[in-house]
């Protein structure tokens, strides 16, 4: 029985039968992310889109402070690592002085919506021709699961151990809704990567965002509503389910703005 299966597999595993593989731009460095972390899938999507657009030699990424600080270790493009929250300003400097380059930031909810709010809003308001990739998992992952601006009401974190109290900490910040109001943005969208179909849809949207940046249409913001199994203290599978049930109602998926 085993012999037959092995023969079968060797008939299938041939270069001409390849349907899916890790993109070439993603190198073999093992990623430091926790098991099941959404970052890995989003990294893959960036690599695939940049590769498919033939822009590897012209792309410059800006990594944040947060779990994705080391994004530069995994995608073989040029990178600049920004101070906490400053990625949109760094990207502005890069893009303004290198108009032929494709420039994106990669930021978490703490980086983008707390300490970097001013940089985010003003880069978007100027309509910088960059892509802002916003990974929103409603928690500070890198520092060990503290409350972030997008933490849900009642959600427990290490700095709101009894659940986020609106009276004390204010409301979950729907920053993408805010960014969609700005005239400088051309695409503001919420995506996720928890199912194969969501991943495929997110990739199409991400490609549009990158194309927008090269067409000079203004700022594209792609929010990925994501999980943080370690911070949420759940398995990756439970995290996905919890996200669908609890996070999506606050941060519903879909385009908030999409100008052709």
């Amino acid at each position, binding site marked *: 029985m085993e012999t037959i*299966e092995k023969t*079968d*597999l060797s*008939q*299938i*595993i*041939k270069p001409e*039968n*390849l*349907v*899916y*593989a*890790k*993109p070439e731009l*993603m190198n*073999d460095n*093992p*990623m430091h*992310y*926790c*098991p*099941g*972390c*959404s*970052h*890995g*899938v989003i990294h*893959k999507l960036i690599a695939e889109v940049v590769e498919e657009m033939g822009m590897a030699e012209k792309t410059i990424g800006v990594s944040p402070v947060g779990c994705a600080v080391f994004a530069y270790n995994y995608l073989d493009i040029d990178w600049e690592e920004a101070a906490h929250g400053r990625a949109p300003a760094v990207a502005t400097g890069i893009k303004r002085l290198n108009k032929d380059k494709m420039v994106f930031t990669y930021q978490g909810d703490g980086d983008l919506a707390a300490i970097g709010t001013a940089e985010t809003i003003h880069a978007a308001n100027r309509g910088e021709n960059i892509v802002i990739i916003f990974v929103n998992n409603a928690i500070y992952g890198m520092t060990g699961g503290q409350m972030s601006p997008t933490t849900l009401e009642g959600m427990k974190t290490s700095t709101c151990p009894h659940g986020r109290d609106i009276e004390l900490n204010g409301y979950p910040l729907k920053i993408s809704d805010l960014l969609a109001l700005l005239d400088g943005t051309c695409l503001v969208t919420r995506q996720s*990567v*928890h*199912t*194969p179909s969501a*991943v*495929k849809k997110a990739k199409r949207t991400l490609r549009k965002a990158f194309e927008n940046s090269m067409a000079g249409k203004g700022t594209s913001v792609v929010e990925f509503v994501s999980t943080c*199994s370690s911070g949420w203290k759940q*398995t*990756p*599978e439970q995290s*996905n389910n919890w996200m669908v049930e609890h996070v999506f109602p606050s941060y519903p998926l879909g385009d908030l703005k999409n100008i052709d």
Partner: protein
Amino acid sequence: MAKIRGAVVVNTERCKGCNLCVVACPTQVLELHPREVNDKGYHYVYMKQPDACIGCASCGYVCPDGCLTIYKAKI
């Protein structure tokens, strides 16, 4: 009659045993290895029921660590 058959090749050292591919698979091909672990101590995924694989790559799309390579052929 020709039949669509798929195969998943696992980079067992990259796999962190997150189980998301197991959940995503529509034909219950995959399972985390009940005994074997990789150098980092993760129970990596393997094809428990290779005959059931249709090569849809759903596992690959949701794999956060890019450790799955998928092939598909008519046999």
